[in-house]
């Protein structure tokens, strides 16, 4: 079954997401879900949670490098939109048609930046967190005051709720694009290929 016949004028399928970015995305899914689940429901000795947290830290470091030096669609500068472009995109979000956006859309970009920022904060608070149980103390907790380390543990918990909210919003947006706008955003993140507007440079 080819999309070629149904694809409107001015739309072409391109290689959008490079393999490293896709691998990053799905590795981040696995590590964040595992770390979150272990944090909420895991054993009281949280060694595995720590390991997944370190993996998230490494993945975030990769994403920052890729955001600065990676292929154009992966670069932060590629999806850094001003208020005008963001509002224009938001104004027509309800149109029942695919966006054919060549990369992170202005609204999607907000979600990407928010998720990355919150995950950086989550890793940061985790490293300094002292939950007062003597066994799950963050590796850098003893480099700060006890009050700071206790507060970090509190923020680590509160931020976990923000992570959950952002992930649910992410999934809701994907469902909205699929069901309402009839645009599959998951497949491009697997295959790397996406139908996009030719008049916009990817």
């Amino acid at each position, binding site marked *: 079954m080819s999309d070629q016949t149904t694809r409107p004028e001015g739309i072409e399928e391109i290689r959008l997401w490079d393999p490293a970015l896709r691998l990053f995305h799905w590795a981040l899914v696995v590590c964040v879900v595992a770390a979150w689940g272990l944090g909420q429901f895991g054993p009281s000795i949280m060694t595995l949670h720590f390991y997944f947290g370190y993996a998230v830290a490494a993945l975030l470091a990769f994403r920052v490098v890729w955001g600065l030096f990676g292929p154009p669609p992966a670069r932060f500068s590629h999806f850094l939109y001003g208020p005008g472009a963001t509002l224009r995109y938001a104004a027509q979000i309800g149109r029942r048609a695919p966006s054919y956006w060549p990369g992170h859309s202005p609204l999607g970009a907000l979600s990407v930046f928010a998720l990355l920022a919150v995950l950086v904060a989550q890793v940061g608070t985790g490293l300094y967190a002292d939950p*007062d*149980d003597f*066994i799950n103390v963050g590796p850098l907790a003893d480099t700060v005051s006890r009050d700071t380390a206790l507060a970090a543990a509190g923020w680590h*918990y509160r931020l976990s709720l923000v992570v959950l909210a952002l992930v649910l919003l992410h999934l809701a947006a994907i469902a909205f694009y699929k069901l309402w706008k009839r645009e599959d955003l998951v497949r491009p993140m697997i295959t790397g290929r996406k139908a996009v507007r030719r008049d916009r440079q990817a």
Partner: protein
Amino acid sequence: MRKAIITAIALALPTTLAAGPMEDTIAARQGYFKLLGANIGVLASMAKGERDYEAAAAQAAAGNLVTLSNYKLDHLFMPGTSADDFPDKTRALAKIWDDLPDVQSKVADLNKAALAMQQVAANGKGEMAGALGGVGGACKACHDNYRAK
């Protein structure tokens, strides 16, 4: 002048009244947990290598944990001493008082972990550190549910 003094006393009165048995109870409760922490801290710092392992000190700390976890806690959880009542003073969530038996069962779990620790505390750093997970886990189980984040 006299009016000023009476006004001052009237203004000070609520604070004076507030520093009563509730505050004393909260302070005593926090003292109890500080004692727990001080003894677990001895074991944890040995396990982490922050101080040299000493069998006698480890054994003493483990014994203290057994004693402390046998302590009758009821009076420390006087009604009206939750974080709802004294948000600046305590992080003890009000739901402690909704299910005191569960809180007590968690203290009983701590007691079990302390007894296990007491069995092995003098048997070397490795065995002691192995038992620390149970003790810390008992701390965590209660903090997760009953302490404000």
